[in-house]
């Protein structure tokens, strides 16, 4: 942004950086989270960010299917699975 | 209907919507909803509704029967000075405890206390729920409440006028009047059998001193206890007579109990209390006033 040059703030670039940062951070959080349900939340965030990335690539249909299938179904099934397992196992994993 | 037929479990799922739709149409378009908008519209309450008490000061005799029957001990008697009535005792009600059972109304011997249709008694402060007699006062409640207790004409004895002439006993066609001797006094007192009395007024007519008068008395459904005097303990102090709200206790001199004074003259004879049970309202004030435990009140567990 040196003086004299034409300044063009690229919106797409900005949004892309934001989304990729969100994707990466949430993906890291999935691994790092202590509570297993928290990692599921991270996973959902990751999926949603990826869906947004698809939209940026003007692949709307893929993005929608990504949300519908991954967030709406896969994450919920994972959450279900975690909750239906016994609490004691979860607690022993934590420690 | 008798035995309602058991419908099969295949009733149509949306069947109840028909019923609710009927009510819906009625309350939306055809008529009005079933409720009233309370603080602005009010329902008419029946005349016998049990709400806030009202006390007719002129009828009330301050017997404290209402205070005694109250299951929650929410009433009390308050001493007041009234320009018309002088020194009186009248009941107050604590609406924080009142359960509106209506026993106070039922037991009142003069039907001076009533429950009105007023029910909005709530207040932010608990102390304001205590309604003193002045707040309950309503001296003319005709028409506001139902007075359904039946009245009865009964000969009421004024012992101070009675001369024990026995004329009334002779005159009574139903033999309802019996002359009963009063212990240690040497006189007889007409006692009236209320079950036999037909309110014929003959005794009133024959009484030379007009001591017997027929008066309208409210019937009571509560059994009146009979106070009994223990002559040995009675000192003749007449505290009970002063305390009696119904003027049913008379002090009579007992002949032969005069003390011989130092100068040989005879002093005043001892007095004793005589109960006129027709007038008794069963309040037990005499029992509680007597310091010498000379009055027995039947059935009280000590």
């Amino acid at each position: 942004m040196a003086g004299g040059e034409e300044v063009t703030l690229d919106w797409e670039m900005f949004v892309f950086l934001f989304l990729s940062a969100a994707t990466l951070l949430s993906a890291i959080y999935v691994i790092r989270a202590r509570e297993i349900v928290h990692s599921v939340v991270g996973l959902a965030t990751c999926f949603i960010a990826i869906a947004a990335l698809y939209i940026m690539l003007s692949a709307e249909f893929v993005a929608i299917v990504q949300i519908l299938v991954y967030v709406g179904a896969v994450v919920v099934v994972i959450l279900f699975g975690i909750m239906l397992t016994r609490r004691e196992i979860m607690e022993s994993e934590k420690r | 209907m008798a035995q309602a037929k058991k419908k099969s479990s295949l009733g149509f799922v949306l069947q109840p919507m028909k019923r609710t739709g009927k009510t819906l149409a009625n309350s939306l378009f055809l008529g009005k909803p079933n409720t009233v908008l309370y603080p602005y519209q009010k329902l008419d309450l029946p005349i016998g509704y049990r709400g806030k008490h009202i006390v007719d000061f002129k009828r009330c005799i301050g017997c404290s029967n209402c205070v005694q029957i109250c299951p929650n001990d929410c009433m009390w008697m308050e001493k007041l000075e009234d320009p018309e009535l002088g020194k009186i005792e009248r009941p107050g009600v604590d609406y924080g405890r009142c359960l509106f059972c209506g026993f106070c109304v039922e037991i009142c011997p003069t039907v001076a206390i009533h429950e009105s249709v007023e029910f909005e008694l709530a207040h932010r402060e608990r102390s304001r729920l205590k309604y003193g007699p002045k707040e309950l006062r309503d001296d003319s409640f005709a028409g506001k409440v139902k007075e359904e207790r039946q009245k009865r004409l009964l000969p009421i004895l004024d012992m101070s006028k009675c001369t024990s002439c026995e004329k009334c006993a002779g005159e009574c066609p139903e033999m309802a009047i019996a002359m009963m001797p009063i212990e240690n006094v040497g006189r007889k007192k007409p006692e009236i059998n209320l079950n036999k009395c037909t309110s014929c007024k003959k005794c009133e007519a024959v009484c030379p001193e007009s001591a017997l008068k027929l008066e309208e008395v409210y019937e009571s459904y509560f059994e009146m206890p009979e106070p009994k005097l223990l002559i040995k303990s009675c000192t003749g102090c007449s505290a009970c007579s002063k305390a009696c709200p119904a003027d049913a206790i008379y002090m009579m001199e007992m002949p032969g109990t005069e003390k011989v004074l130092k100068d040989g003259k005879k002093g005043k004879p001892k007095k004793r209390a005589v109960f006129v049970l027709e007038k008794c309202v069963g309040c037990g004030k005499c029992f509680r006033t007597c310091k010498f435990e000379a009055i027995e009140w039947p059935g009280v567990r000590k």
Partner: protein
Amino acid sequence: MNLFEFCYGIIHWLVDLVNHLWYWLGDVLPWWFGDFFDAVGDFAASQGHLSVMTIFLEVVIVVIIALINVLNFIWIFRKFMGRMFDFYGPYYVGYGIGGWLQNLADGIKLFVKEIIVPAKADKMGYLLAPIIYIGSSILILATIPFSENFGVSTNESGTYVPAGALFALAAFAIAPFSILLAGWASNNKYTLIGGMRSAAQMMSYEIPLLMTVASVFLLAGSFGFVDIVDAQHDIWFAIPLFIGFLIFLVCLAAEVEIIPFDLPEAEAELVEGWTTEYGGMRFGLFYFTTTIRSYAGGALATALFLGGWHGPALIPDEIWFLIKAYIVYTVFQWMTWSLPRVRVDQMLGIGWKRLLPLAVINLMIAVALKSMGWF
């Protein structure tokens, strides 16, 4: 002129206005400032900035309209419930319109309540769940147009996003995730059971719902709302796809959790279901969002089956759309208060054993209609 152009015009005008002042400032100030001023001004007038701002404005407009509609819905809910229960309902709050402001009054009351987080709750989940729930529910509204010209999901050239309807359903499907999270994070047995039931219910009813909607997509030949509604110009899809319409309504009732299927909030067994531990405005927002979902459900039913904004031209298109959505919601309310709630195993049974085969039959009917060339 559609909503996008309208908003674009406003934004353009505003930017022009501000830029006049801005450039004047740049001229007045020393030269090294002036360059910076010019750069920012150019950026503000750039196409990208203008379209982003336009979308923001659109979102604000649509959300405000949605909020007003939700207030209306809660009012209808109370008033209708009251009249059905044979009492007046809210009456005095709201000048002239019996009790319309009662909702606002309740909202203010909820706002001033204390915010409590249960001591042993999982804080992150507890705080995140309402956000996801509300966010995903408002996302549904983004795609729903009120008429051909009144909708957010347009792009710069003014054409609608082709997969709008699918996007709405996808946003619908995020909710069970937040409900499960809320139920789990509250650390309470009732909320946990409520969350489980809710997720099981939403997942099992999602499938017949999507299958019926698929039949609509098939007949309309598009995923976009505008094309679907235009395809119903002659005949509403509710008539040829009558079975599908019924299935759609039942599934919608399950999705928005109203009484025959309100097992997650079955107040007799589970106190308040998965919202038990939420109080104050958090509960208020849940309640609010549930109403938003009902509104979105009504709008979806209208757009997909009831001919959208088509109607006699006496009334504007947008109003037609709203009237139909309101009617759908009212019928839902009628059903809600007239029926008992089913048991959880019975509900899953209905979903899997009855509705799913029926949805398949419905899809076959749609395929037959399409292959006959009638649509």
